[in-house]
């Protein structure tokens, strides 16, 4: 059973969003997604200052046998990206909601509130 923290919002394409106290939004991929992909060997994060539209492909996660795009869950501008992942992609397997975060956006937090909640996402992944 994969871990779906109650305080986050989710997309059907397996991204999570956390609205931080400063109003920015942190994005990553879910525990379920990292388990499906298997051991990650490469993560590409978007450049800082890049403007993203919701559903735009903006990051890539690769395992030995699969490569998957990550989509922006909401619109916004990238204010930070997790550069540690370049050398340590395993952080994403080990701690998908913590050390394995992908990037942080500034945008309209209300957009995040409209995404799936933990129950809806849990139902989605069965």
């Amino acid at each position: 059973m994969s871990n779906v923290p109650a305080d986050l919002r989710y997309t059907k394409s397996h991204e999570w969003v956390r609205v931080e106290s400063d109003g920015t939004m942190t994005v990553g991929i879910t525990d379920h997604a990292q388990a499906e992909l298997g051991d990650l060997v490469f993560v590409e994060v978007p450049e800082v200052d890049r403007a993203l539209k919701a559903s735009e492909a903006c990051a890539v996660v690769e395992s030995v046998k699969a490569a998957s795009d990550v989509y922006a869950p909401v619109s916004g501008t990238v204010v930070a990206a997790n550069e540690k992942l370049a050398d340590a992609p395993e952080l994403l397997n080990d701690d998908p909601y913590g050390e394995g975060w992908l990037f942080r956006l500034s945008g309209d937090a209300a957009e995040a509130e409209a995404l799936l909640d933990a129950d809806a996402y849990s139902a989605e992944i069965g």
Partner: protein
Amino acid sequence: MPFVPHTEKDIQEMLSVIGAPSVDALFDEIPEHLRCKKLDAIPSSAPEMEITRVMHERAAADGIALNFIGAGAYEHHIPAAVWEITTRGEFYSAYTPYQAEASQGTLQLLYEFQTMMCELTGMEISNASLYDGASSLAEALLMAVRSLGRKASGRVLLPRALHPYYRQVAANLTHAQGVTLHEVDFEAGTGLTTVAAAERAGVEAPTAVVISQPNFFGGLEDVDALTDWAHAQGALVIAVVNPTLLAVHRPPSEWGSKGADIVVGEGQPLGAPLSSGGPYFGFLCCSKQYVRQMPGRIVGRTLDLDGKPGYTLTLQAREQHIRRSKATSNICTNQGLLVTAATIYMSLLGPEGLSRVANASMANTRKLRDALTALPGVTAALSAPFFHETVLTLDRKVAPVLERLSDEGIVGGLDISGMYPELGNALLVCATETRTDADIARYKQALGEVLARAKAA
């Protein structure tokens, strides 16, 4: 029919296991109107004895000429062991090493090949090969565009003194992805590509600058100045090199103050026979920061369950079978068999043998130039230092002269007057280590006679 072991009894028993009344019934999903008629236009089956005779006759008809053409494909001595081993069934009839544990021979060999190419070029990473030299250049251009990402203008500067076929192939394989090629003229008199000429091309923010060492005329470019200039423009430097030359020439990693970024070339001189133009192989090397944009197969060393070292294809997520429409290239294969030959070739020649090949080829081409330009009506076209190829000018059209030489069993070089009208009656000639003094004397005598006869006529 040939190569099918089935007896009539096998066929009947197999059909009964399948539960089909006839072999024809196995095709019952193909609609009747699409079924093939007899293939009468195709010749009847020839037993091996018969086709052997045909092929011997045809090979003999083409004959074995005394060859003085290079122009991208070079006649070098190939040790007998190279193809004896390469055509062992275990190399020859294996497939891409997807099942690494059952392909350690090919995989270790590719790892050794990658190491050897890194040694020759000085670069950090080599792939396991691409199709040929020209298509490798095209792949390198696309790789440069991907490496610069959204900053890439897609404008590429390449010398007019680069092999004309490389320029054509690069354009044909990249134009659909928005790459535009801009030519840099060569200097009259030397045939070399200068920084001043590159400046004059007036291309803003080039994504890549291509440097050919040697260039198509055999000329040796000032690679340091060109590399530094290209880097000052923010461009990546793509070196197109002859691998034999690198045994004695400073590797591209040491060109200018920062070195080339991507190195490509034709691998044919390393153990592949001329063979009418293929199969050859292309090589592509780069510095580590660009590895994720590299096309083609890459082999890595790793450990097995017992901690024992072994080899496997790696970084496969760049490739088409995983990335599909977002792959670095649609390429699937490398040129495995040719790389097998090249790896054995480089091992047999070693650093000493390969540098002797390079030096002997250089020396022979100088002898050839000196011998031929001693004839009235033949002059050296360009003054620049050259590797194992150079351009001569004749006092008349080149093509008829070459035809007469061909009648004498001499393939006397390549007529490049059509490719480069500005060079006049230009003849590109090459003499590798395989040409002897007697060969050169024979060419000189034949050319002298052809020129004299025509003059008399």
